[in-house]
């Protein structure tokens, strides 16, 4: 125990003497959080659209005014040729072309059936689906709105209607930041933890000080614990700082217990730091360890469900994602913060992380050789 205390003191002295450390702990996370929370969004607003109105009737004008009035759409220009209008797709000036055919109004009144064509610029498939949803919604509303008008002329029995109402739970305003900030916090503690520990032992290797350590009677586990604890504390501190910023700047709800967040995080960090330490035991230079850490991080983060839902992945990828600690922690964070889930909801995550931490830490202790 006493030996560990001496190692800890030495590590802390070195960490805080390093001038680059304070910005890494305070400024970079702050900037990342602010930029990421604003940049990382799949929200679709300001959909620019072109109109080709061959009908020029009161119905067609009314339909277009419904689009213009919506918050999601912005009118770009009107023309009478699809080809001409589609030029704006090439120059990225427009995302949607609404084509209203001739006799739109007449067909509607006469046959009860008319058509609208939507051309959507779909390089981004996701955005395209959302644009489609928004537009069909508007057209449907319009459709329902003009039925009574039309019924005035024809007296028909009211057909059966299924009334669909929906509500968005846990995030009624569909605020994307609410969703992303917990994920960004995960990203933050993961990057800081993994890079710092990943480079730590390799730095001692490069400086040659590891050799001196290796001839002392330090036990392997003492050394690993001594290396682990400082970054564990720093990362938890980092998380606290991030949560505070999230609360103050973005007013992110924290429905669940803060204590539970830190409990899960403290286990998760043993996994991340363990991976970092493991990387530093298998590399010789800081450059190598940085590259490997970076590569792992990309795979972990992209497959961790932070940006895109894991449920959307093919099953082989979901199997891989099961072994990704980021995925588990990210899920738990979002559940606790946004839905107020409690310990019984996430106990499986905790077991998983505990097993993972034990395995990876034993692996690093085993892999760390007290040889030069």
């Amino acid at each position: 125990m006493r030996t560990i205390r001496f190692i800890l003191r030495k590590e802390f002295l070195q960490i805080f003497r390093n001038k680059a450390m304070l910005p890494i702990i305070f400024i970079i996370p702050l900037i990342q959080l602010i930029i990421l929370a604003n940049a990382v969004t799949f929200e679709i607003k300001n959909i620019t659209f072109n109109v080709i109105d061959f009908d020029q009737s009161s119905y067609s004008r009314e339909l277009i005014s419904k689009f213009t009035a919506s918050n999601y759409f912005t009118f770009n220009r009107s023309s009478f040729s699809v080809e001409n209008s589609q030029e704006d797709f090439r120059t990225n000036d427009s995302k949607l072309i609404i084509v209203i055919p001739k006799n739109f109004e007449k067909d509607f009144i006469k046959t009860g059936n008319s058509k609208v064509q939507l051309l959507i610029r779909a390089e981004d498939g996701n955005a395209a689906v959302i644009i489609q949803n928004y537009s069909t919604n508007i057209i449907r509303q319009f459709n329902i709105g003009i039925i009574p008008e039309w019924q005035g002329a024809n007296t028909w029995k009211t057909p059966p209607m299924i009334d669909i109402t929906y509500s968005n739970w846990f995030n009624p305003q569909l605020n994307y930041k609410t969703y992303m900030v917990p994920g960004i916090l995960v990203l933050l503690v993961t990057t800081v933890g993994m890079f710092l520990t990943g480079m730590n032992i390799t730095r001692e290797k490069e400086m040659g000080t590891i050799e001196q350590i290796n001839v002392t009677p330090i036990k392997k586990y003492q050394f690993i614990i001594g290396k682990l604890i400082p970054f564990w504390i720093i990362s938890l501190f980092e998380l606290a700082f991030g949560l505070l910023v999230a609360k103050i700047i973005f007013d992110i709800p924290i429905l669940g217990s803060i204590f539970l967040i830190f409990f899960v995080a403290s286990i998760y960090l043993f996994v991340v730091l363990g991976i970092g330490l493991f990387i530093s035991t298998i590399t010789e230079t800081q450059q190598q360890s940085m590259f490997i850490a970076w590569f792992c991080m990309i795979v972990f983060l992209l497959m961790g469900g932070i940006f895109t839902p894991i449920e959307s992945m093919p099953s082989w990828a979901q199997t891989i994602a099961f072994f990704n600690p980021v995925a588990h922690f990210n899920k738990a964070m979002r559940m606790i913060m946004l839905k107020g889930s409690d310990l019984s909801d996430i106990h499986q995550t905790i077991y998983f992380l505990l097993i993972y931490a034990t395995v990876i830490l034993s692996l690093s202790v085993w892999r760390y050789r007290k040889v030069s």
Partner: protein
Amino acid sequence: MSTDSIIIKAEDLTKRFGKFTAVDSISFEVKKGEIFGFLGANGAGKTTAIKMLCGLWKPTTGKANVAGFDVYKQTEQIKKTVGYMSQKFSLYDDLTVKENVSFYGGVYGLSNNSIKEKSEYLIKKLEIEKEKDELIKSLPLGWKQKLAFSVAVLHDPLLVFLDEPTGGVDPITRRQFWNMIYESASNGVTIFVTTHYMDEAEYCDRVSMMVDGKIAALDTPRNLKNRFNVKSMHDVFVKLARPDYVPNPIPSNQITTL
């Protein structure tokens, strides 16, 4: 010679890296309290031998016993008993003198009182009262080396390994350094020192000469000079390393580095 007085005993100790044999079946004994010089050119296998003896590397074949412990199985006990100063400077650059001393003291399990006492003594002895709270990286190399030596013997080891301790240091500091070695030796610490400065060999009680991974000669400096009929250890070394070499007509003490 009773076995009690023997602190290192190596028999056919060998280390191979792939096809390359760095240390080729060396056998020797080191007596308690002596200054044992381990000489050889760069790449002769000195560092490899030292690393095996202090438990950093496992030998490929052969036997060795350090302070009564086996170099295969009891490396951790060896580490408790010996001190080591590596070829690379190995104190923490970004810690102060006092912090380094207290860290290593703590790691070796010294009590807080004894850490305090030792660091005060050390600071006084090295005359670095003013610099005790400065970062190591701001000190000149000679001071760093003296400090590294003091740290290596901090826990009063029975035996200390010094791997090229005076590399790159000016002659005056080297002199001072050797005075520190003598002082430790007079306190009963066995010194095992490698060097490629042949003049330093003269300071040792016994020296072994390594050439290409083998021990080419092992004796007191005086006996070696007599045997090869030369005036300096430098010439002994040259004769051993290049048997066809004709000794330089210029008095050899002028071409040694000191």
